[in-house]
């Protein structure tokens, strides 16, 4: 009997250790929009709620804004958050900055009614489309400037910034071969030996959106299409068979240490690496592969049960203002209102010049195409590369 009791004690100890890591949640009820008669949680635009001035006043009265999974180094968000706080005196709390879109959706589902729930989310399109029931419809003042294929017609979600898949390369580490500029270059037999073990992505394509998109871009370069990602999986299997593919997740430090001299990633990540590493004496060139143009956008959405409904909406207005959109471009991302701003002449010239050149336009995958590609990749990736 005592042995059983001891065993139970041991099990309990393990349980204690395991649950010690789980966090406690806030318990106070949601703040109400004090000082304003408008119920901002129902407002579908600034005008519908009584105009921008009323929105600013209500947001200031709320005094804080909960963000989630916004890394300060990603698409210039550090600057954007700092400027927003300074301009409106609204305190920003950024939960779980290195989480994923999946984590953001989970937080919306499970933190409903908590004052610590996220007010807005910034998610990949695959995580925006299926969850419109969690979002509040809201159309920013510049709604008509966002291209139609980058937004939900009701205003549940709307693209904020995006970019192309690009190839970055540290010429010094791949010499004597030249830096690859296209997917075809990477398979050029003359360079295979020099690229050996040097080609990386931003991790696991079944988890990381950038890596998933890199596979899709490779598919486009090899006879695939938005409805067929399979050639991309085959392409990476070939890179692996050549010994070129390096499964290590690219980061600034892996590029610096020489572990991943060639990285296939979003242009805003690669350009950010290049800009940061320049100071450390590493010359990284970023090019958009002409044979595989693939672009995708991230989406903004307001939590239907946002604890700070006015601040959430003001944040969206700020992101889609000329300042916010140009700030994204300062972080090497392409703002969704790029074309409209170009014709209005409001683009920041310096930031625009820093973007790699792209010729032609590109189609954005539909939700159905994304689902099909995810399923094909999930079942095919490990099998093809194992």
């Amino acid at each position, binding site marked *: *009997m*005592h042995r059983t*009791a001891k065993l*139970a*004690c041991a*099990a*309990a100890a393990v*349980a*204690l250790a*395991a*649950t010690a890591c789980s966090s406690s949640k806030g318990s106070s009820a949601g703040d109400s929009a004090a000082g304003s008669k408008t119920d901002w949680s129902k407002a579908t635009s600034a005008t519908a709620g009584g105009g921008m001035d009323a929105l600013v006043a209500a947001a200031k009265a709320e005094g804080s804004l909960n963000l989630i999974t916004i890394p300060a180094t990603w698409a210039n968000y550090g600057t954007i958050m700092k400027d927003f706080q300074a301009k409106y005196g609204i305190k920003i709390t950024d939960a779980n900055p290195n*989480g*994923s*879109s*999946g*984590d953001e*959706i*989970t937080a919306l589902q499970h933190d409903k009614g908590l004052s610590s729930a996220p007010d807005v989310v910034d998610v*990949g399109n*695959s*995580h925006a*489309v*299926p*969850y419109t*029931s969690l979002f509040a419809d809201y159309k920013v003042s510049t709604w008509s400037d966002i291209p139609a294929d980058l937004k939900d017609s009701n205003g549940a979600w709307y693209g904020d910034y995006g970019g192309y898949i690009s190839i970055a390369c540290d010429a010094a*580490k791949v010499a004597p071969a030249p830096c690859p500029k296209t997917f075809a270059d990477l398979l050029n037999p003359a360079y295979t030996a020099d690229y*050996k*073990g*040097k080609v990386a*992505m931003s*991790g*696991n*394509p*079944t*988890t*990381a*959106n950038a*890596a*998933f998109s890199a596979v899709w871009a490779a598919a486009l370069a090899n006879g695939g299409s938005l409805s067929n990602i399979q050639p991309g999986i085959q392409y990476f299997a070939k890179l*692996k068979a050549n*010994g070129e593919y*390096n*499964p*290590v*997740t690219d980061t600034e430090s*892996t590029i610096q*240490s*020489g*572990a991943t*001299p060639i990285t296939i990633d979003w242009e805003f990540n690669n350009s950010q690496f290049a800009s940061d590493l320049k100071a450390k004496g590493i010359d990284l060139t970023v090019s958009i592969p002409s044979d595989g143009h693939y672009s995708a956008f991230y989406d903004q959405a307001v939590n239907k049960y946002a604890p700070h409904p006015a601040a959430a909406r003001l944040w969206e207005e700020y992101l889609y203002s000329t300042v916010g959109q140009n700030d994204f471009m300062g972080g090497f991302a392409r703002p969704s209102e790029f074309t409209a701003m170009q014709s209005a002449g409001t683009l920041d010239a310096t930031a625009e010049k820093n973007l790699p050149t792209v010729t032609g336009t590109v189609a954005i995958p539909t939700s159905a195409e994304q*689902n099909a590609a*995810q399923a094909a*990749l*999930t*079942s095919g*990736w*490990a*099998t093809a*590369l*194992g």
Partner: protein
Amino acid sequence: MIRFGKKLGAWGAVLPLLGYCAIALGLPIWALLWEGLHATDPVTQQTSVSLSNLTASWHGIYLTGLLDSLRLSLLSAVISAILGLVAAYAIAQSRGRILKQAILTASGVLANFGGIPLAFCFIATIGTGGVFQSWIQHVWPSFQLGTFSGIEVVYPYFLLPLMVLTTLPALDGLRTQWKEASANLGGSAWQYWRHVGGPLLLPSALGGFVLCFGSAFAAYATAQALTSGSVPLVTMQINAVLSGNVIANQNNLGMALAVNTIVICGLMMAVYLPLRKRSAKWLES
């Protein structure tokens, strides 16, 4: 009567803990099962009872993932258990008290050293552009860090110290006198280990093995950083469906995969506990 009171006392003392376990372990398992047995229709968003997630978790890439996880953790547990036991024996035999203390402390630290930092240490040493890359290419030309054999090289780094940590106390408990007594009775070294040392060590060696298995089976960040999912492991698959940036709307499949891992660990304990009981009985008699 006294015995009964004693029994009740022991159970009474453990009751709050059992209650705690029911909440901390029982509830999550119940929630996993509940969610695993439900599916949400992607179009209507209606949730209904369904075996589809459990079925999916036992087929295709998810079955491969489970089997690969099993293969990986069994193999690395065997390697670490054997090498760890030998290492622990060598340490136990040494006379230096300071050495022993230092190794115990170091093992305590290293057994918890995993995740991305560990992966990066190996990338910097034997990965592409690593300090010892040319050397490893020389002795093992086909070696690549981001493969099954690559993980197999990395895992013992934290499993071996775990094995040393769990078996060193038992090895320290082996008294020289027993060996001498066995020799006096004409026993050979083999006979000593077969009939005295081995059975004495078995419970803690088995315990160490099971710990190594569990630790390898549950490990995730190191493998994720090294392989990017090109080696399918169930832990990475759970992460991909629950907390990724790509796959959406499949949380229930993640729960079903988690249920599978609980089943595997349950089976492992079902083998381990009777074995341990048998060897413990020998010690008591």
